[in-house]
C-alpha cells in the first residue's frame, strides 16, 4: 500500500508539469483563434462603439501583454475558473460539469464491456494458440478493430433502432417522461445500449488481441513449461499462470486508451445526440466558442491524467515489482 502511495505521489508531481505544458499550449491555441471574448460578446449584443470595446478589453485585462494575459489565465484556472462561455451565456465550468456525468456513464460502461468481454474472449483465444477458436477470434477481432466507431453507431441504429425498433435512436433518456429512481436509471441504460456498443466494440477487439498476444508469449516462458511438467490441470495453468501475467499489459492499456476513448465519445455522442462532454466539443466548434473548446481540452487532459494515475496505482497493487525502488530509496 505504501509502495503504491509513494509511486502515485511521484507521478502526480510529474503530471503537474505536463498539465502546465498542456495549459500553456491551450492558451496559445486560444490566442491563435480569430477574435477574442470581447469581439464575441459585442457581436452577441448587436455591436458597440469602439470606446465600449476598449473599456471592456481593459476590464477583462485583454489589452495587456501576452504574458500578462497568460498569467491572468493561469491564476483564474488555479481558482477553477474556466472562463465565460459566450455561446451558452453561462460560466464554462457550469456547462462542462453539467455534461460530464453523461459522458462518464458512457465511457465507464463502454470500458467495462470492452474489458470484461475482451479479456474473457482473449483468454478463450489464448488458451490454445493457433487452434480454430483462436483463428476465428483473431480474424473477427481484427475486422471489428477496423470498423470506425461512428459508422458502427450508424449501422447499429439503422438495424436495431430504425428497422427492429428495439432501442431508441437518440438521446440519453425519454424526454419529459417524469420517471424517477430506478425507472429513470433503466430508461437511461436502455438509451445507452447502442452508443456503449458502438464505442466499446473497438476496445473490446483491442483488449482481446492484447490478451491473446500476451498469453501466446507467456506459453513460451519457462514457468508455463514448468507448470505443465508438474502435471497441473490445463485450466489451472491457463487461468493461474498464463492469463494472469498477460493481464498486466491490458491493465496498462486501460489507462492509455482513456484519451482515445474520450476522443471517440465526441463522434458517438454526436451520432446518438447524447448531451455529453464530447458533444459539447462539437457544439463549441459549431458555435465558434474558442474559450469553451480550449477549456474542454484542458478538462479532458485532467481526466486522462486521473485515469492514468488510477491505473498506475492499480498496477502497483497488482505487480509487486513496480515501484519497489520507491520504498528502498
Amino acid at each position, binding site marked *: 500500500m505504501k509502495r503504491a502511495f509513494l509511486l502515485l505521489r511521484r507521478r502526480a508531481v510529474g503530471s503537474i*508539469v505536463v498539465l502546465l505544458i498542456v495549459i500553456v499550449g491551450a492558451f496559445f491555441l486560444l490566442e491563435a483563434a480569430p477574435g477574442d471574448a470581447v469581439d464575441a460578446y459585442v457581436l452577441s449584443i448587436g455591436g458597440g462603439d469602439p470606446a465600449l470595446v476598449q473599456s471592456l478589453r481593459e476590464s477583462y485585462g485583454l489589452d495587456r501583454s501576452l504574458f500578462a494575459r497568460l498569467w491572468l489565465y493561469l491564476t483564474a484556472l488555479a481558482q477553477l475558473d474556466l472562463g465565460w462561455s459566450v455561446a451558452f451565456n453561462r460560466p464554462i465550468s457550469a456547462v462542462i460539469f453539467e455534461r460530464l456525468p453523461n459522458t462518464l456513464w458512457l465511457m465507464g460502461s463502454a470500458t467495462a464491456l470492452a474489458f470484461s468481454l475482451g479479456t474473457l474472449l482473449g483468454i478463450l483465444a489464448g488458451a490454445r494458440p493457433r487452434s480454430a477458436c483462436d483463428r476465428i477470434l483473431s480474424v473477427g477481432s481484427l475486422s471489428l478493430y477496423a470498423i470506425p466507431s461512428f459508422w458502427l453507431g450508424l449501422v447499429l441504429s439503422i438495424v436495431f433502432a430504425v428497422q427492429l425498433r428495439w432501442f431508441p435512436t437518440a438521446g440519453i433518456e425519454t424526454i419529459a417522461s417524469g420517471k424517477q429512481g430506478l425507472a429513470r436509471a433503466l430508461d437511461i441504460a436502455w438509451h445507452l445500449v447502442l452508443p456503449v456498443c458502438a464505442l466499446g466494440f473497438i476496445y473490446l477487439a483491442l483488449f482481446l488481441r492484447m490478451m491473446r498476444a500476451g498469453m501466446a508469449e507467456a506459453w513460451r516462458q519457462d514457468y508455463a513449461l514448468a507448470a505443465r511438467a508438474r502435471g497441473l490441470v490445463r485450466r489451472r495453468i491457463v487461468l493461474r499462470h498464463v492469463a494472469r501475467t498477460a493481464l498486466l499489459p491490458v491493465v496498462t492499456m486501460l489507462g492509455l486508451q482513456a484519451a482515445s476513448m474520450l476522443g471517440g465519445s465526441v463522434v458517438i455522442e454526436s451520432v446518438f445526440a447524447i448531451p455529453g462532454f464530447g458533444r459539447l466539443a462539437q457544439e463549441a466548434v459549431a458555435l465558434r466558442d474558442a474559450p469553451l473548446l480550449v477549456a474542454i481540452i484542458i478538462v479532458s487532459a485532467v481526466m486522462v491524467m486521473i485515469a492514468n494515475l488510477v491505473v498506475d496505482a492499480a498496477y502497483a497493487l497488482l505487480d509487486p515489482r513496480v515501484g519497489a525502488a520507491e520504498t528502498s530509496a
Partner: protein
Amino acid sequence: MTLLIRFLRSPEGVAGLVLLGLLISVALLASVFFPRDPLSIAGPALLPPFQDRAFPLGTDRLGRDVLAGLMHGARASLAVGIAATLVAMVVGALVGTIAGFAGGIVDEALMRIVDAFQIVPGFLLALAFVSVVGASLLVVILAIALGAWTGPARLARAEVLSIRERDYVAAARVIGMHPLEIAIREVLPNALPPVLALGSVIVAGAVLTEAALSFLGLGDPNLVTWGSMIAEGRNVLRTAPFLSIIPGIGLVLTVLGIYLFSEGLGEALARRRIRA
C-alpha cells in the same frame, strides 16, 4: 529480400497486400473512370444501387454518383492518411532522435512535451486545430499529425538509446567509419522495421481520424471524402441507408487492409528475430 519472402508466406500479409493494392489502384484510376467533379450532379436523385447501369451504386440526395464519390474518396482518404503519417513520422523521428542523442535537460524537456501531447485526446486536438485555423486539406493533414507524432518520437528515442550501445556500432566506429556513414549504413536499416510497423498503424488511425473529422463537417469542403459521404447520407438514413453504409465499407476495407499488412509484416519480423 528474405524478409519479403517471409512476408509473402503469411496469409494475413498477402490478404492485406492485395486489399491495399486494389484500393491504391482504385484511388489512382478515379480520375480516369470519372473525370468529372464527383461533387457535380450526374443524374436523378436518390437512385438505389444495382438499378441503373449508368449508376451502379446509385445516387445521393442531390443526384451525385455514389461510385464516383467512392473512388475519389479513396484517393482523399489514402492521400490524407499517408501525408499525415509522413509528417508525424518525420517530426517524431526528429524530436525523438534529438532527445535520445542530447540527453539531460533537453531530453527531459522534450519528453515532457511528448507527455503533454499524449494526455490530450488526439481527436479533440485535431478538432480544435481545424476549427481555429479553418478547414483545408493541408490543415486537416497537420491536425491529424499533431496527435500522431508522439508515438514515433518515443520509438525513435528508444531506438537511438539502444542502438547507440550495440556492439556493431562500436565495431563500425573502431574501423573508422564516419558517424554519418554509421547512421545510414548500420543504424538506419536496423531501426527501420519497427518504424515501418508503427507507420502502418498510424496510417490506419489517420484514415479513421480524417473520416471522423469530415463526418463532423470539419474536412475540406471542396473534397469528397468517405466521412463527408457518410454524413451526407445520414440526412436520409431512414429512407436510403445505403448512402451511409457504402462509404463505410470502403473505410473498413482500407483499415482492415492496413492492419492485415502490418500483421504480416510483424509476423515476418518476429520469425527473423527467432532465426537470428
